[in-house]
């Protein structure tokens, strides 16, 4: 065996510049390698090769697959002899691949077994090396290359997963945020949705609006507690169930109890519950009936001031099924009113200097004088989120959904 010259620049070292990108500090990161080899002579040889090449490798040795099993997770790369007492041929490799996900595997074969090495790469090993035909530099490079290739494969797999998840989230989001069924001449309606800071976590906020008969609107804003596909799917279920109930003209008092039954029968976990605000508006009569199930109260905007609707809250849906939800009626004064319904993501952020959290008081303080600050109802939700984020000091963590119903249509 020839002593490798580590001082001159060899053509294959040009790879290393790229491969070492994961350790930008200059010196290549040390690799933790587990050699699984039962022949002490062969194990010694591998050790010597690495020492000669002054390879930045911490080598551990196991003499069988059974002995290696407990150490698989603490290494970057496994160097596996294909002729072990407890695993001959490719069976040991298959066992290892089953038990590790992020660890690279190189196999060692004899000269007469090269076909096994090729088969091993076909089964999922990153590379194969033939005993007696490898010097220290080649061995080091093969190990490092195997680790980098495994990393690239893992990254590609994660990227694919993320893309699938994003497509799934987009589908669910469309289900959570429907096209409102409202005649624009009845009242102005602005809907708004902003995903939380952690985009990967799909929120369970949802809303819907249906004009059940001319001038009579039903509004819903809700939030399934938690974040994830499970919660978002339940949000879609609840929204569609609610739309069906109001389209079927089920009496208003019976809608939320029925919605709770749907929640209880459709949820996968007992810990899933939902808060909702349901508002039934009779526009010609200037009346709105509000029912809250654990949800923050809508805010009435009139004459440039903002006042929270005082509603005795009913219990969050799904906690103690069957509890009734009190309804209160409010007057909508003349043609100068807006009714803002929102999810708690809007008020949970930090409240700036005055309030610990923005809360309902902070929200109303922001909204006072809204007519002078915000030109049209259409711009209000976006402006409001901007103000909330300013006080929070960073983007809001949770999703925000808002519905603003406005008597004046597109103008205050």
């Amino acid at each position: 065996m020839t002593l490798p010259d580590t001082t001159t620049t060899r053509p294959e070292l040009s790879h290393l510049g790229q491969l070492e990108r994961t350790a930008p500090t200059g010196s290549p990161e040390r690799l933790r390698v587990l050699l699984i080899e039962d022949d002490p002579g062969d194990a010694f040889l591998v050790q010597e090769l690495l020492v000669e090449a002054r390879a930045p490798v911490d080598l551990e040795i196991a003499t069988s697959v059974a002995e290696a099993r407990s150490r698989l997770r603490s290494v970057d790369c496994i160097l596996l002899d294909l002729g072990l007492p407890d695993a001959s041929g490719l069976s040991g490799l298959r066992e290892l691949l089953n038990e590790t996900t992020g660890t690279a595997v190189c196999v060692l074969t004899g000269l007469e077994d090269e076909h096994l090495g090729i088969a091993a790469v076909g089964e999922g090993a990153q590379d194969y090396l033939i005993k007696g035909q490898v010097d220290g530099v080649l061995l080091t490079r093969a190990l490092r290359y195997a680790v980098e290739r495994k990393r690239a494969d893992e990254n590609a797999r994660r990227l694919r997963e993320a893309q699938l998840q994003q497509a799934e989230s987009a589908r669910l989001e469309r289900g959570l945020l429907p096209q409102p069924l409202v005649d624009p001449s009845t009242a102005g309606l602005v809907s708004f949705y902003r995903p939380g800071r952690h985009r990967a976590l799909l929120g369970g906020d949802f809303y819907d609006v249906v004009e059940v008969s001319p001038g009579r609107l039903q509004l819903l804003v809700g939030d399934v507690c938690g974040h994830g596909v499970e919660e978002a799917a339940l949000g879609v279920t609840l929204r569609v169930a609610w739309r069906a109930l109001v389209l079927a003209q089920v009496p208003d008092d019976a809608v939320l109890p029925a919605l709770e039954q749907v929640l209880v029968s459709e949820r996968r976990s007992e810990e899933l519950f939902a808060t909702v605000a349901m508002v039934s508006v009779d526009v010609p009569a200037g009346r709105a009936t509000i029912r809250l199930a654990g949800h923050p109260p809508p805010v009435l905007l009139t004459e440039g001031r903002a006042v929270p609707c005082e509603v005795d809250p009913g219990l969050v849906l799904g906690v103690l099924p069957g509890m009734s939800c009190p309804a209160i009626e409010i007057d909508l004064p003349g043609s100068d009113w807006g009714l803002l319904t929102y999810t708690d993501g809007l008020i949970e952020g930090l409240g700036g200097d005055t309030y610990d959290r923005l809360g309902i008081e902070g929200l109303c303080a922001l909204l006072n004088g809204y007519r002078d600050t915000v030109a049209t109802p259409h711009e209000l939700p976006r402006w409001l989120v901007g103000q909330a984020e300013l006080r929070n000091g960073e983007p809001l963590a949770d999703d925000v959904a808002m519905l603003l119903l406005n008597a004046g249509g597109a103008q205050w």
Partner: protein
Amino acid sequence: MELSLSTRTVDHHTVLEVGGEVDVYTAPRLRERLVELVEAGARSVIVDLSRVEFLDSTGLGVLVGALKRLRAAGGTLALVCGHERLLKIFRITALDRVFALYDSVEAATAATDPDAGQSA
């Protein structure tokens, strides 16, 4: 901010002191700990939220889950929550009618009989 959890025993009650933020990221740890306590046989559990800075709906879900689990096992769950910031959340969600809420651990232990759960 991180979540901190520590458990102690006060007059046969299991007191779980929670600190920091209980949100979508940290709530699973709170859930795990509560499940462990119930599985280990705790039947009178007091969750002390006095040092909680923030509690979101996921955190509430975990507390509701613990309440159900304890009731099913014949136990009780009391919450210690002295400050207005957190009480507001319980009021908005009307969960103040579901949970036994106390100002202090002393008030909670005085009001709860540790053996009441088992005989119920």
